[in-house]
């Protein structure tokens, strides 16, 4: 964020990778049921991000003293593959960054899971980043929600997230790696369909008016991710995946 550079991030209304200000990176693909042994799973390919999410549970709470007779415990693990980006990631213990992201994603997921319906249990959500190009936390969350649906965990609603940022003085959707490094602000956010904000983080500098515009742009565009999740679930259960496998 805010690093000096002579790269022109926006030129004639087009961004570095040639897309408009309010466009998602391509490809934007989501597939559910990708892991055989997980209770639910999903794979998202979002621009340069490739992330697998796997859900295990509800299962017995271990260690036992963490058990809550009134609700389920939701644990999220966000991990970057050691090979996922140019910087080093995932060597030995979880980093400060991955612990933080696990927590914020976990909190967002817990707010859509009907935890009181499956008391005394635990749901583990693993998200592994195979390849990273910025905006992985919201991509991981979008995949994790699809994996939760695939696992049959009772949900109140679905949720998805996108990162909106400020680059070269403009509010733009879905910022990528270079825009994150040399842009002015990055604001990942996640919504459910009722419009509740489940995750909001920001670094950089924006005016109140710009934050308001960014939130509105995020809410408008997150609808496309909801329909992406719907298409993924439809494709899986209508047997299109099976047709593909049998060919």
């Amino acid at each position: 964020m805010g690093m000096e550079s002579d790269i022109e991030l926006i030129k004639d209304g087009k961004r570095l990778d040639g897309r408009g200000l309010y466009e998602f990176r391509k490809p934007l693909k989501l597939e559910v049921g990708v892991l055989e042994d997980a209770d639910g799973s999903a794979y998202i390919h979002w621009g340069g991000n490739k992330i697998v999410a796997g859900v295990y549970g509800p299962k017995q709470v271990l260690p036992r003293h963490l058990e809550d007779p009134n609700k389920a415990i939701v644990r999220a693990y966000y991990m970057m593959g050691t090979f996922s980006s140019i910087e080093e990631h995932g060597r030995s213990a979880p980093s400060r960054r991955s612990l933080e992201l696990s927590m914020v994603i976990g909190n967002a997921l817990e707010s859509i899971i009907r935890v009181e319906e499956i008391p005394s249990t635990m749901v583990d959500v693993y998200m592994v980043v195979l390849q990273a190009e910025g905006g992985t936390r919201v991509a991981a969350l979008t995949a994790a929600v699809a994996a939760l649906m695939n696992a049959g965990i009772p949900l109140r609603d679905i949720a998805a997230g996108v990162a909106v940022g400020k680059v070269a003085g403009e509010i733009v959707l879905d910022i990528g790696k270079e825009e994150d490094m040399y842009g002015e602000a990055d604001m990942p956010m996640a919504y459910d369909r009722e419009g509740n904000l489940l995750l909001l983080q920001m670094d950089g500098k924006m005016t109140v008016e710009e934050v308001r515009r960014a939130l509105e742009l995020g809410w408008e565009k997150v609808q496309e991710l909801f329909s992406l999740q719907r298409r993924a679930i439809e494709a899986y259960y209508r047997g299109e995946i099976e047709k593909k496998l049998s060919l």
Partner: protein
Amino acid sequence: MEFIGEKIYLPGDVVFEGKAPRSLELIVYEKDGKVIASVPLTLTEDKRIIPLESVFKPKVGDPIVGIVEDKRGPNFVVDTGTAYSGMILARETKGIFRRDDVVFGKVARVEEGGTFILGEIRKLIGGRIFEVPPSKVPRIIGKGASMVNMIKEKTKTQIYVGANGYIWIRGSPKATIKVMNAIKLIVRSSHLRGLTDRIAKMLEE
């Protein structure tokens, strides 16, 4: 093959106006007089709710296949492969169980926290256990147990299906593998129409 329902509802979608049945508390919930989906589900032509996925929560009367894993005082703890364990009370059975014994029983009552007491216990000797997602069990059993009975007849095996997702099979090794493949196919295409015919064809090959 064709999909069983028409529309697929996602969590948060309004399924219809009215009351949510108590027995489907993990599948739908009620809000402002509307029934809202909680898992991906579909409706049949006669407006029956069919969950495409769901999790197991014990209810009285559920058949259970489990593995004895521990002894607690005079009682036995049964692993069901789910979040909830079963208990066999010593005063309700004359049997003696050892670790790794496979048992079949019915949920007699559910205690707070989800642990349940098993009744009508039967020990299953030999055979092997196969695990499936609990949400697929109704499809494996079929309408009036039609599917499982057909598999039993055609392969000459003994099969016990637990609502918890454990399936116990006893038969010749060849037949056991045949049953396992048939069950795998049911799990994979549980939401498609015309499954019984396809399974019958597969078993005859």
